[in-house]
């Protein structure tokens, strides 16, 4: 594990896309997670945003986020398929190989596993020609799928090579989900790991989780669940996960701080994690 395994996420930083890309590069990160609003909200238009990303030399960790996709019927389903297609096209244009898909929070979504499987298979099929992998994440306020073991169950049932899991430490911490099921996951089916923490012990309601998730996350090492974040990273490392770690830190304060200050906090977080996970991964030293 080293700096190259970690990426920042544009949602953590304020300002124009070019400034975010430059700050992340100057902090010597090599990858970045992009949000659709970075692209469509660019004053020069979508093409200018894509050019900026390519010119930055940063690898795109993934593209986010497709919401409330699965479990819908009729016109709602058709509408979401159109949204998904547009996002896949942007994802491809950016050179991102991962599209992040959050489990549905829609009150209109069915929880019938067959339907969820059917819809995620369809999304995975749409992604095949574009060489994009669908990373399905259990949102902690998801209507039916809100913990990673449930998302893993759906991914397994769908049986599509380009459909896997995104794990987000925030959601795991917020629902207090046990890490025991991690052992059942297949490392190649984990397409993305997002790390963050927060500053209070509990999020009691889905509303509480949503508020915290969207405004008050902090980098690993800055919050109050440090041990569990490290436990997660260690478990993933030991089970052989060698994919990307992205800092999914939504934080209103960080969005009003200078970019180098926030990037420096991200770098400190990388050091904090690698010092603990790296050391733990080494074989125990034999006594002479």
């Amino acid at each position: 594990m080293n700096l190259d395994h970690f990426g920042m996420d544009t949602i953590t930083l304020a300002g124009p896309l070019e400034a975010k890309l430059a700050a992340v590069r100057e902090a010597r990160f090599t990858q970045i997670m992009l949000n659709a609003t970075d692209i469509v909200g660019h004053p020069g238009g979508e093409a200018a945003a894509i050019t900026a990303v390519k010119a930055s030399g940063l690898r795109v960790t993934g593209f986010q986020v497709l919401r409330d996709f699965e479990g819908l019927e009729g016109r709602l389903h058709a509408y979401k398929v159109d949204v998904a297609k547009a996002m896949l096209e942007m994802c491809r244009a950016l050179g991102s190989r991962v599209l992040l898909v959050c489990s549905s929070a829609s009150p209109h979504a069915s929880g019938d596993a067959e339907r969820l499987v059917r819809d995620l298979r369809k999304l995975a099929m749409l992604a095949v020609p574009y060489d994009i992998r669908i990373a399905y994440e259990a949102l902690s306020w998801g209507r039916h799928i809100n913990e990673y073991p449930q998302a893993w169950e759906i991914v397994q049932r769908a049986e599509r090579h380009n459909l896997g899991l995104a794990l987000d430490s925030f959601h795991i911490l917020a629902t207090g989900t046990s890490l025991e099921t991690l052992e059942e996951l297949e490392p190649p089916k984990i397409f993305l790991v997002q790390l963050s923490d927060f500053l209070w012990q509990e999020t009691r309601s889905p509303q509480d989780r949503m508020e915290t998730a969207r405004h008050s996350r902090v980098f690993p090492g800055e919050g109050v669940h440090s041990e569990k974040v490290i436990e997660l990273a260690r478990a993933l490392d030991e089970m052989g996960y060698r994919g990307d770690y992205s800092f999914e830190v939504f934080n209103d304060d960080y969005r009003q701080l200078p970019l180098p200050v926030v990037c420096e906090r991200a770098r400190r977080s990388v050091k904090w994690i690698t010092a603990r996970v790296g050391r733990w991964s080494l074989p125990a030293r034999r006594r002479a």
Partner: protein
Amino acid sequence: MSVKEELPEPSNPLGIDGLEFVEYATSQAQAFGALLQNMGFAAVARHRSREVMLYRQGPMNLIVNAHEAKSSMPTLSAFALRVRDAAYAHQHALELGAWDMPTRASAMELNIPGIHGVADTLIYFVDRYRDFSIYDVDFVPLAGTDARPSALAGLHWFGIVQSILGDRTADWLDFYQNLFGFSILPRGQYFGVLPKGTLLESPCHKFYLQLIEPPPGSEDIRWEEGLVRIGLGAPDIPAAVKALRQRAIVFVDRGAVQPSEKGALTQPYLGGVTFELVHSHLQP
């Protein structure tokens, strides 16, 4: 038609019944046409309004599309599957997550439904191939030509070779298995002189797709996904090679790729187009 024929078999949900045509795009339509004639194809019809020609040889239809062609090198741009019901096949594919083809992307002005295949290619669905054909309306037969030229040395469609990026075999298996019902042949079961990649058999057992990932050590080669070439089946490869050589077709005869009883590969023509001959058990 009996009731039984109307019911799709579980292993062949679309009632796929072979390849109706393959389509090449090229801005060198005349030079490519001359090459096709050397390969045994004959021009049989011209599109009424576009620069599109229909070539035929035995059971094979081949379309050369120069209308808005981007590249001079003849490039495989589409293939058409014979299916029981084209509208059903199209809808079924869309419901499973295929991308609908862009409006007016069709070579012909016919209403042939289609979906996106690999890269910029299309996969069409054709159900009119028995009593009357899709070519009857928009193509004008060439005067003085045999509309049904016989095949040279029993040539027929054997398959299509598709290049794919590294670690993409499983993705494309998902695509062809789930959309169309193709099945994977056991590793080690190969045909022809280019034994590599992964072979998929059509649910009608009438043709194959070969998926080729970049070979090891080819990191510096620019490798893109696309349809690479067609494979032509023949019952007797040496006889087919001899017949084609007499028509000035040159075969690669170096290293492992030498004409043999198993198959043969032509040299690249017109910037890179090749044809593969494969010893075939298929009945055209």
